[in-house]
């Protein structure tokens, strides 16, 4: 039952990633692209966690944590750049 659920959830997350990619390519404004990139980060964390559950190891936890931190830092850096035109004042 768990392996079926993992496959089903992985399919849903892949569809979600494709939708995010569509928004990132399509997005009328730069903020839409930033938001789509942030959501792609979260979805890829979900995919990595799912792979870790499937393999039964905790090795992928650090990768997921790193991607979470990098996603937040990149989002805030891009927003800061758009707000001020400068990253470090």
């Amino acid at each position: 039952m768990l392996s079926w659920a993992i496959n089903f959830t992985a399919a849903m997350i892949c569809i979600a990633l494709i939708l995010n990619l569509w928004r990132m390519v399509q997005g009328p404004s730069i903020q839409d692209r930033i938001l789509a990139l942030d959501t792609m980060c979260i979805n890829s964390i979900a995919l990595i966690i799912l792979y870790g559950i499937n393999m039964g190891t905790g090795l992928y936890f650090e990768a997921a944590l790193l991607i979470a931190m990098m996603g937040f830092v990149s989002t805030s850096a891009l927003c800061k750049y758009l707000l001020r035109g400068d990253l470090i004042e």
Partner: protein
Amino acid sequence: METWLEGIVALILVFGGAFLLIGSIGLVRLPDIYTRLHGPTKATTLGIASLLLVSAVVSSVLQGTISVHELLITLFLLITAPVSANMIAKTAMHHDLPAWKRTQGQELIEPASRQAAPDDHQEERDTKLP
């Protein structure tokens, strides 16, 4: 793993995946940037939180000891998702992006986008006022 635990875990897993998908559908379908912020910030955060809960339960059962370090990512995402959404919304208002025509209170967008950030001496000036 016992059958009942596996059933509960599979249910929460599908629930979390469905919320991730719903958040991304909201990102595609909703009409403007201010409404589009709702999908990824709320639905996706709930989805990833349930996925990480499943991961914590599964690794606890497999190792035989309680492992809660997956909840660290949950905590981090729960803290950072509103912050990044706030920053994106501020950027959108700074760039004067048009809101959807059925958005209420649109007359407040213009003065709010011109509002200056509060500085360090704001409180002193407020207390000096009669």
